[in-house]
C-alpha cells in the first residue's frame, strides 16, 4: 500500500508529466490485487498436489496394472486386481476381519473410558492440572516404544502378564498364537495410548457446556448419573462424532502395534496364521514381499473405500445418540 501512496502523491501535481509511470503502477497494482491471493495460497496447493493428489491418482492408475519390479513391462489389466481381491483372496478377508475386530475391541472401550475419565476430571479435584496432564502423557510417547514394551509385557516366556497369570494360578497364554488373545493385547496398546487424547478432547468440550443446565437439572432432582447421560452426552454429540471418525481412520489403518507385536523374520505376516495381520500389514506384505505393486494399489483403494464407509456409518449412528430422545 505504501508504494501506491508514494506513486499517487506526485500525480496530483504532474499527472501529464509522468503518465507512463502511473499507468505501469496501476496495472501492477491490479495484477497484484488479482493474483497475489492465489500466490499466497499456492504453497498449500503445490504441496497438496505433490504429496496427496499425485499419489492418489498414481495409486488408481497402478491398481489397474500388473506393475511389479519383477516384470520388465507394465500391462493394463483393468479391474482384474479388484476382482481377485474381492472374490479370491482369503488372506485379504482375514486381514479385514482382524482389522475390524481389533477396531471394535479397542475403540468402544477407548471412547467409553475417555468419556468417563473426562467426566471425572471435569469435577473439582485436588491436583487437577496434574491429572489432566498425566492422562495426556501417553500421546507423546512413540508408538514403536509402546509396542516394544507391550510386546515384552505380553511375551510368552518371560512376560509380565503371564507371570501375573501364573501367580494367581492360571496357565500362561501364548498371546501370539491365539487370535482373540492377540487382538486383546494389541487393543490394550492402542487404548493405553489414545484414551488420554480422547479424554482431553471431551474435557475441553465439557467445559463449554453451560453450568445453568446442570443447576436447573439439579433443582429438578436429577442425579449425577442422570445429568451425565441427559446433558453431558447429548451436548458432546459433535465432539463424539469427531472422535469416532478419527478413531475409525486410525483403527482401520492399525499398523505399528501389530507389526511390532512380533519381532524377527516374517513380522508382516501378523502371526503364524495371520491371527493379527491387519489390512495395512497385508498391503505391505503384498507390496514388499510378493512385489505385486499393482495389486497392492488395489488393496489400498479398497481400504480407502472401507474407511469412507465406516466413517459414514459411524456418523449416522452418532447422530442418533441424542435425536432419539
Amino acid at each position, binding site marked *: 500500500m505504501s508504494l501506491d501512496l*508514494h506513486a499517487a502523491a506526485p500525480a496530483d501535481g504532474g499527472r501529464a508529466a509522468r503518465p507512463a509511470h502511473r499507468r505501469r503502477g496501476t496495472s501492477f497494482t491490479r495484477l497484484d490485487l488479482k493474483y497475489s491471493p492465489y500466490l499466497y495460497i499456492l504453497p498449500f496447493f503445490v504441496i497438496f498436489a505433490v504429496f496427496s493428489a499425485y499419489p492418489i491418482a498414481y495409486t488408481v492408475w497402478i491398481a489397474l496394472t500388473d506393475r511389479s519390479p519383477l516384470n520388465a513391462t507394465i500391462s493394463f489389466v483393468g479391474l482384474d486386481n479388484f476382482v481377485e481381491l474381492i472374490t479370491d483372496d482369503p488372506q485379504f478377508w482375514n486381514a479385514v476381519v482382524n482389522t475390524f475386530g481389533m477396531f471394535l475391541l479397542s475403540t468402544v472401550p477407548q471412547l467409553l473410558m475417555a468419556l468417563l475419565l473426562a467426566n471425572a476430571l471435569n469435577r473439582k479435584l485436588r491436583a487437577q492440572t496434574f491429572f489432566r496432564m498425566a492422562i495426556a502423557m501417553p500421546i507423546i510417547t512413540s508408538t514403536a516404544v509402546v509396542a516394544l514394551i507391550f510386546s515384552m509385557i505380553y511375551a510368552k516366556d518371560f512376560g509380565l502378564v503371564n507371570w501375573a497369570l501364573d501367580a494367581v494360578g492360571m496357565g500362561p497364554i501364548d498371546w501370539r498364537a491365539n487370535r482373540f488373545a492377540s487382538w486383546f493385547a494389541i487393543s490394550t496398546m492402542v487404548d493405553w495410548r489414545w484414551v488420554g487424547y480422547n479424554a482431553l478432547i471431551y474435557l475441553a468440550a465439557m467445559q463449554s457446556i453451560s453450568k445453568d443446565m446442570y443447576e436447573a437439572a439439579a433443582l429438578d432432582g436429577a442425579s449425577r448419573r442422570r445429568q451425565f447421560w441427559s446433558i453431558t452426552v447429548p451436548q458432546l454429540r459433535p465432539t463424539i462424532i469427531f472422535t469416532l471418525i478419527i478413531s475409525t481412520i486410525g483403527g482401520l489403518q492399525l499398523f505399528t502395534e501389530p507389526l511390532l507385536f512380533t519381532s*524377527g523374520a*516374517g*513380522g508382516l505376516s501378523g502371526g503364524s496364521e495371520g491371527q493379527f495381520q491387519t489390512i495395512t500389514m497385508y498391503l505391505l506384505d503384498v507390496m514388499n*514381499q510378493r512385489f505385486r505393486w499393482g495389486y497392492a494399489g488395489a488393496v489400498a483403494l479398497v481400504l480407502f473405500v472401507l474407511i469412507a464407509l465406516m466413517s459414514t456409518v459411524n456418523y449416522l449412528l452418532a447422530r442418533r445418540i441424542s435425536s432419539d430422545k
Partner: protein
Amino acid sequence: MSVPTRRRRFAAIAIASVAVLATATACGDDSSSDSGKSDGPVTLVVDVFGDQGFGYDELYKQYEADHPNVKIQERGKGLGLGDYNTRLTQQITAGSGAGDVVALEEGTIVQFYAQADKFVNLADYGANDLKGNFLPWKWEQGTTPDGKVLGLGTDVGSMALCYRSDLFKAAGLPTDREQVGALWPTWDQFIATGQKFAAADKKHKFVDSATNFYNVVLMQIAGQGTGYTYYDKSNKLVIDQNPDVKSAYDLTTKMIAAGLSNNLQSFSNEWNAGFKNGTFATIACPAWMTGVIKGQAGDAAAGKWDIAKAPGNGGNWGGSFLGVPKSSKHQKEAAELAKFLTSAKGQIEAFKKVGNLPSSPQALADPAVADSTNDYFSKAPVGKIFAAGASELKPVYLGPKNNAVRTAVENTLRAVEQGKSAEDQWQAALKNGAAAGK
C-alpha cells in the same frame, strides 16, 4: 521513501540469494558429474545387511590407502535381510538411492535377474577373467541365464551344527566334536539324540526353532535331490510337486512332535534372548551363523559352544554377492571395489572378522582359512569343518519370490509349534505358499 527502499533492498537480497543458491547447486552438479569421469575424489557407498555386517572395515581402510582418490562409506550394518531387501528393491526399481556397491543375498539375487538391465554387467569390467576365483556353482548363481555377471560371490553358507558342549555334558551325551558328529549320521538319528537329551534335561530344549531346522534340512535335501525348492528352474511354482519340500517339512514336524523345539521365532528378540539365556542346546549352523551366535550369546558363553558335522551330507544356506547398480555415478570405481572385496584376500579378511566362509577356492585352501580355529567355539577347526563340504556342493536354484514363499511356509511351521495339526498346516503351506508366489 524509506519503506520502498527497504522493499527494493529486500527484493534485491532475495533475488541475489536465489541466484547464489542456483549457482551453488549448479556447481554441486558439475563437480559430482566431473568426478565421475576424472580422477577427482570419489565417495563410494557400500550397502550391506545383517547384525554383524560383512566385516569389511579393515579392507576399506586398506583400499582407501591404496586409492587416495576413493572414500568408502558403508550403510546397513544392523539391518535385517528382509528390510534391506525391500529397500534395495525399491531403490533399484526407482533407479536412485542405492549404494555404488550393493550386497545381494543368495535368496534374492534371483529376483534381480529380471532387473539385470538395472545393474552393471561386471563382465564389462573384466569380471570374466576372475571366474576361476569362485566356486563354479557360486559363479553360476551370480550370472543371469543370458550370461550377464550380476554379482561377484562373497561368501557361502556351507553347513554344520553348533551345540552347547556344557549342556551335552550335563545330559550325559558325548562332548567331543568328532563323537558328537558321529551321533547323527542322519537327521532321524539327530532327532533320536534330541529325545535322549530331552529325557535327561527338562530345562533346556534341543533345537532353537523349527524354521532354522527346516531351512537347513530343505537346502540339504534339495541339493542332493531335485536341485531346486519352491520353484523349478523355469520359475514355475512347484511347492506341491517337489518331494524334497515335503520330506523336509515332514522331518521338521517330526522334530516338533518329539518336543525338541524351543519355539523361538528366528531373528526375533526372544530368539536373541534364547542365546543369552542359553535356553537351547543346538542350532543348525551355516558359517555365517557362527558370527550371529558370537554376537548374541556374548562373552559369557565363550567356550560353551562347539561345532560338529551336520547330519546328512553337506549343504548350503545363505551367502551373498556384490553387485553394482546402474544408478551408480562411479560404476568403474565401484566395480573395482567389488572385485577387491570379493578377491580371495578380501574373503579371507571377512572370514577372520565375522566368520563368513569364502566362496573362492583359493581362499578356502589358504592356510588362514583351512587351518583356522575359532576360539569362541572351543577352538573348533572351523576352516576344516565348513570348507570340507563347500567345494563339492551342488547349487540349489531359488525362484524369484523365494523369500515370500519361504515366509509363508515358515509361518505354518510356527503354527505347528503353537500346537496346530501338522497335516492341516501342510495344506495351509501349499495354499499360502501358492498365494505368496502368485
